[in-house]
């Protein structure tokens, strides 16, 4: 549901004390103003439902529920919600995988917003090539439009080798050709599409081919998960924003020898965990991100 509000109220309600990123080119707003309106969505990521590890999160059974409550309490409900993968924690047992997905789905059914888009992470999909995920959540790659912004969901995890693959690349190319070069485009995926830290498996093997396909488009923003922390990076004019996790934080890319979860701090429970609200302003040409910590609430 889109609400008609003025820009000042929009920025205020969506919490733009946060960071504002200009996407695309400043000039040539031919596509923009009349086609798109301001709106905001929430990105949740990496809830790893089913994970057990008291040293890093003794509240693993309640953290996702806490996030659901936090989203429901936002002053202005989002237009829609996206989950950028690793909804569940991996297991070798196909039945346990399905149980976890069923439980996850029941928990997020408590979200007041009904328009929710899901995509898989490697924990959901890599061991069965996305079979269970598709049973519960539908296709692993697709696109949709909202208020003049084109959203593309890419699957870089159903192949356990972290490839998007030739078939999906061809689909992406075809999907993009239906849009003007200055159309606002948001890409949602799990792994980073660039080589953030390949030594930690923080990359997509053919991610550069995805970026090559996106590069001719002037107004592209990528939101992803996987690395369990806020991170911002540019490849040319394309901005990539990683979201926090809902289970445990991970260290900054390459900051220590091993990629081990940050230990739970009883003095600061839930520290480093959270979600984000993303406001699309100026017809998708400005992206405003408001990070919402789970701690302290």
């Amino acid at each position: 549901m889109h609400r008609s509000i003025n820009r000042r109220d929009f920025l205020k309600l969506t919490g733009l004390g946060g960071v504002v990123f200009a996407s695309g080119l400043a000039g040539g707003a031919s596509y923009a103003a009349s086609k798109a309106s301001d709106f905001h969505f929430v990105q949740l990521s990496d809830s790893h439902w089913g994970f057990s590890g008291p040293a890093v999160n003794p509240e693993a059974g309640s953290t996702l529920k806490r996030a659901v409550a936090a989203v429901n309490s936002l002053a202005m409900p989002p237009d829609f919600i996206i989950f950028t993968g690793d909804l569940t924690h991996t297991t070798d047992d196909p039945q346990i995988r399905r149980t976890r997905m069923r439980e996850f789905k029941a928990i997020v059914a408590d979200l007041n917003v009904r328009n929710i888009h899901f995509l898989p992470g490697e924990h959901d999909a890599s061991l069965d090539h996305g079979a269970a995920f598709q049973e519960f959540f539908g296709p692993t790659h697709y696109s949709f439009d909202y208020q003049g912004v084109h959203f593309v969901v890419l699957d870089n995890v159903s192949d356990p080798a972290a490839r998007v693959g030739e078939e999906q690349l061809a689909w992406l190319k075809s999907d993009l050709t239906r849009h003007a070069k200055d159309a606002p485009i948001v890409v949602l995926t799990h792994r980073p599409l660039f080589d953030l830290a390949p030594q930690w498996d923080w990359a997509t093997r053919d991610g550069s081919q995805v970026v090559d396909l996106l590069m001719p488009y002037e107004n592209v923003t990528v939101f992803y998960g996987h690395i369990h922390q806020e991170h911002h990076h540019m490849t040319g004019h394309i901005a990539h924003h990683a979201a926090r996790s809902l289970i445990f934080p991970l260290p900054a890319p390459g900051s220590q020898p091993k990629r081990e979860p940050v230990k739970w701090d009883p003095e600061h429970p839930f520290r480093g965990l959270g979600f984000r609200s993303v406001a699309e302003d100026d017809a998708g040409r400005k992206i405003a991100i408001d990070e919402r910590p789970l701690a302290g609430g």
Partner: protein
Amino acid sequence: MPLSRRSFILAGVAGVTFGSLRWALAQPAERVIPVVARKFVFLPNEIVLKRGEPVTLEFTAPEVVMGFSVPALKLRTDIIPGQVARLHMVPETEGTFDFLCDIFCGDGHEGMTGRLIVTA
């Protein structure tokens, strides 16, 4: 005493064989290092090489498909159960290089890492 034709051929064969042996002794045999990739560890997970020494890493994976990747050296291979994967290399740069399994293999995959150490 003139050599018979048979003796000449045998002497020639012995000469060739001796020559090959001398060459083999002069050239260090290429080292082969077996590496097993199993859930969720490489054995060994620390591999020490000498700069300039040709070496072949020989991989097996007894359980599921694994990957071996050294991103800093742009070196990788799939490791498929029932097959031996080989990587031939001559390390040119001293240093420590992280390697990892880059094919998701289950709960513990993230810890399946190791170090390639190239010494002088």
